[in-house]
């Protein structure tokens, strides 16, 4: 297990390194002169040069890269060109919106998908299974932001039960915060569920065909007993992996849902800074998100190794 964990750790560090180089190059190569981007089209050459010198943007690219990365490792994410605010401060304030939203959305998706997907697998070839498969297909085709719009028309505008957007801070009125999150979480969770149902269904289908399930049934368990007692634990493995892979999707969905419901989360901050051409803010924030996603996948891999000896012992 130690060797397996070590291999995964090396991969984690390698992945973070490659991703950081990719983001850095993407911004420098695709964008060109950062100082010119920040100042916009009308800037004079003098102003551009002054800014470049002040922020060290005229140094060689490798030097700038290591400067940025070493800073990140010490918790210094850089600062905004205009407001001079530290990026770390900007980010932390936004997480109290984004993290509850993303986690509850994922949780809701799983709570729906695991029973429904299992039921669909049990009923393959029957009308009920086919209807569930169709519903899941339609759910996958619905853009998450349109789901948000529809839910907010129904529950916000027509019924008036919940706010259609906006945010109250947790410290002011936590009930209000939760009310603001209900519709966003519902949109995110329902669309996640549609995607996850398919994976759960095929994982359970796989397990149902395994010898140990047949053995369990041969010794007298009913289909449901066999599935719950031996099947589900084995189906859990691929489901854990899929959740790891879906984290990237989840973050994409969160970005968009925050916009639909005007929640002051991380993505609103990124978009505002994209519009303001705050290159460093965007670069560091995006890097943080990517490190988070790679880290989740690292943890998922470790879990997988703990759950399944065959995986950690494979060369």
């Amino acid at each position, binding site marked *: 297990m130690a060797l397996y964990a070590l291999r995964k750790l090396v991969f984690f560090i390698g992945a973070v390194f490659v991703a950081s180089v990719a983001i850095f190059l993407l911004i420098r190569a695709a964008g060109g002169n950062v100082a010119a981007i920040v100042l916009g089209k009308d800037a004079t050459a003098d102003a551009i040069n002054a800014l470049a010198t002040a922020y060290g943007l005229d140094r060689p690219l490798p030097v700038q890269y290591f400067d940025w990365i070493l800073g990140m490792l010490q918790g210094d994410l850089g600062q905004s060109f205009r407001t001079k605010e530290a990026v770390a401060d900007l980010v932390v304030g936004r997480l109290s919106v984004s993290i509850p939203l993303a986690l509850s959305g994922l949780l809701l998706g799983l709570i729906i998908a695991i029973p429904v997907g299992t039921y669909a697998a049990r009923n393959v070839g029957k009308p009920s299974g086919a209807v569930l498969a169709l519903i899941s297909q339609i759910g996958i085709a619905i*853009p998450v*932001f*349109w789901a948000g719009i529809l839910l907010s028309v129904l529950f916000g505008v027509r019924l008036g039960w919940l706010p259609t957007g906006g945010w109250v801070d947790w410290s002011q009125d936590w009930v209000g915060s939760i009310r603001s999150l209900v519709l966003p979480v519902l949109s995110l969770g329902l669309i996640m569920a549609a995607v996850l149902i398919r994976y759960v269904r095929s994982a359970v289908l*796989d397990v149902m065909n395994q010898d140990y399930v047949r053995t369990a049934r041969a010794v007298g368990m009913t289909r449901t007993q066999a599935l719950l007692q031996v099947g589900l634990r084995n189906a859990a493995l691929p489901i854990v992996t899929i959740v790891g892979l879906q984290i990237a999707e989840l973050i994409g969905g969160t*970005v*968009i849902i925050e916009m639909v419901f005007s929640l002051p989360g991380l993505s609103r901050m990124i978009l505002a800074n994209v519009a303001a051409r705050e290159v460093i803010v965007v670069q560091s924030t995006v890097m943080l998100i990517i490190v988070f996603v790679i880290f989740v996948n690292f943890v998922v891999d470790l879990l997988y190794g703990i759950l399944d000896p065959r995986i950690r012992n494979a060369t």
Partner: protein
Amino acid sequence: MTVTAPAVAVPKRRRRLDLNASLVVGVVLTIGFLAIAIISFFWLPSNPNIPNIKARMMPPFSPDHWLGTDGLGRDIVAQLMVGARTSILVGAGGASIALVLGTITGLVAAAYGKFADEAISRGADILLSIPGMVTALVLAATMGSGAFTTILALSAFFTPSFTRVIRSAAMGVLQEDFITSAKLYGRGRLFILARHVIPNIAGVMIVQFTLYFAAGILTEAGLSYLGVGVTRPSISWGMMLNEAQQTVGISSPLAIWPGLAIVFVVLGLNLLGDGLRDVLDPKLKRRSA
């Protein structure tokens, strides 16, 4: 007491019926979508970009405007038709580039030794863990938004999935006996890849392309909704939803039509992809179920 019956005893006939339904609905929806985009080049109800103050906010089913007009009096049907073009351009564009890059990298990983395989596969793993939506935001920040940037972003984060799928399909083919005999016959690696491997994985490639065409349309709509995708005079369904929410509030019918268009088209392509997978690659049938 049917204790001995295998858990998934799917009657063959029903399975076939199922598969055909998916394919037929998929083909119908997709052809309708392509036809609307083609017709839009020859005929439009009116110019979708020119405001018409006299005809602002016409309700659906007006004589001159079948689905009404938006806050600036622009015809909804015309905008939807031109939006179909954008979906095809960006969705198919992104998926095509990913198909080409993914085929090259996937084949190299499968056929050019352990080191190439390890490097490419690990690289794909890393890229897969980068959230595409966020990468697209970075690109938009540095290159400006637009159809070209969107295609570039899509192809960047679709390619690793293509690499994975094509690599594993190609590895399967490379283990077949006829590959061994081609090698014994003295055929070079490139010849074998082009002549034997690619034709045998064409089914997988087509299916993958169709599914990612759909994913591309969804992502493009999302990016344009955020305002970092395509911009006028191009028209995107996502952009129309954004404009509907900004200008007239979400409860208007303007927020319905573009969403429905996206659902129909994405559903059609996904069903088409699933149906094709069952027809073209019987081995994958179970997984698609």
